């Protein structure tokens, strides 16, 4: 069993491309220097957390939350909300109480 995990671990070790791909998913641009730097550090962290592989967890339920709360219901009543001007006041760019962002769909294309 240990042997299988050792092989899996080799496959899972993170490399530069994986870090670049993941940073793209997270919408963070990285410089070449950062990419090299982070790859080494993340590889070391992942090697450390691999100690979890030694545990057999097949029969365990995951704990995503410690409380015994399944769902929280409330009466469906309309309550006062923040004024729109307050909600957008911190936006770097806004217009008519709306958030303003660069064009998303290019009509020309």
């Amino acid at each position: 069993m240990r042997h299988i995990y050792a092989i899996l671990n080799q496959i899972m070790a993170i490399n530069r491309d994986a870090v670049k791909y993941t940073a793209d998913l997270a919408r963070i641009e990285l410089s070449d220097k950062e990419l090299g730097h982070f790859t080494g550090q993340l590889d070391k962290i992942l090697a450390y957390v691999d100690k979890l592989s030694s545990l057999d967890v097949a029969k365990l339920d995951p704990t995503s939350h410690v409380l015994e709360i399944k769902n929280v219901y409330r009466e469906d009543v309309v309550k006062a909300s923040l004024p729109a001007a307050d909600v957008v006041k911190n936006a770097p760019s806004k217009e008519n109480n709306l958030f303003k962002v660069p064009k998303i769909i290019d009509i020309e294309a």
Partner: protein
Amino acid sequence: MELNTLTCHNLIDLLYKKTISPIDICNSIIDRIEKTEKRLNALAHFDKEKALERCKSLKKGPGQGSLWGIPIFIKDNICVKNEMTTCSSNILQGFNPPYNATVIEKLISLDAVLMGKTNMDEFAFGSSTETSCYGPTRNPWDLDRIPGGSSGGSAAAVAADEAIFALGSDTGGSIRQPASLCGVVGLKPTYGRVSRYGLIAFASSLDQIGPITKDVEDAAILLKAIAGHDEMDSTSADVPVSDYVSGIKKGIKGLKIGIPKEYFIEGMDQEVKDSIKSAIKKLESLGAVCEDMSLAHTEYAVSVYYLVATAEASSNLARFDGVQYGMRAEGIKSIIDMYKKTRREGFGDEAKRRIILGTFALSSGYYDAYYLKALKVRTLIKRDFDEAFKKFDVIVTPTSPTPAFKIGEKISDPLTMYLSDIFTISANLAGIPGISIPCGFTKNHLPIGLQILGKPFDEETVLRVAYNYEQNTEWHKQKPNFTNGAMHHL
């Protein structure tokens, strides 16, 4: 008498006798800050005129709210309406929340005086307060050392008497570890005890707001002030809030205390170990029954935490994208370009590292191997505590394996930094309450902290054990003397 050096319960007595006024306290705090803040850098945002104005606008008292006229500092990740709230991050520069966190509403309703915001690791990502965009906070016991983190600003301000008390937040030890390293009291309540509404989320299943204070009685007062169910936070628990202050004064005779062997590891500081052993003897002399026991899965806690916490963080921090608040990068070509450049410029190294690690742990192909596996091992860690609390009333451990380390010592090696949370993380994963109280000093006069962990929603017993120990020792009365000391690394 210098009012800034007193505790909240001292000040309440004086205010009731009308020998002092809220303005006197406020002025004493301002004087202290003007003298010491240049050396400490404990505060992220502080405007003395505003603080005085708040003080002057208090209703006439005493006899108003239970915290009438008491000044309080707030960690910079807790929203205060129309006050800069930045999580010590560049990406949130200029953010003035349009609403108050529930804990802030509670403090205002009790007539406490909001003084300002304390420095922290960026988005609470760190154990040293070095990742702040405002620069590191210094430890008042040795200005070349870190105060711990991420609530390092709150702990340093309280230790240095710039604050009477402060709020921090604790995701993996961010209240307890800096309290330990600065020689003050820090309490992480049970998950769900205090509303998280208005706390800028780091890891939603682990975060809790809690007090950082000069003594245990103040921690009880402040917990009572902020605890309770809140319909604005669906994970806040509907469990009655005790009168913690009257509860702490009972004795601890016959109380069963577990000492987990996994918390006395090789490589930990010998002076820390010795102090904890003496503290255990002291608890025994007060009538508690201490017994060695085991929390078998302790060694997996750091691994579980850095997968679960970063996964949740990567999701929570997706909202910082240059659209709704904070900064937006200049010279952008498209919306994706805007996200990427804003996040590149706005986040510091540790934030980027954690977001990428968390995104990786959640990504297709790795989810089962990392994130799901970590959640399953979290079950084992929680079970260890469930079992232990069938037999023991509280568990006592060191808060941190070492005293405060040097500024710069661990910042370039994330894994080493992560391991400094090794004794505090399990409480967050299991959702249980924990406190750190002063229990000694190294020969270099660096504070050492004792951690007391309790059953879910049994803060009362945790505080009671802490109070009994504290009242029979002198550690909490020691004050750092740093105003004339040499300071390097400037």
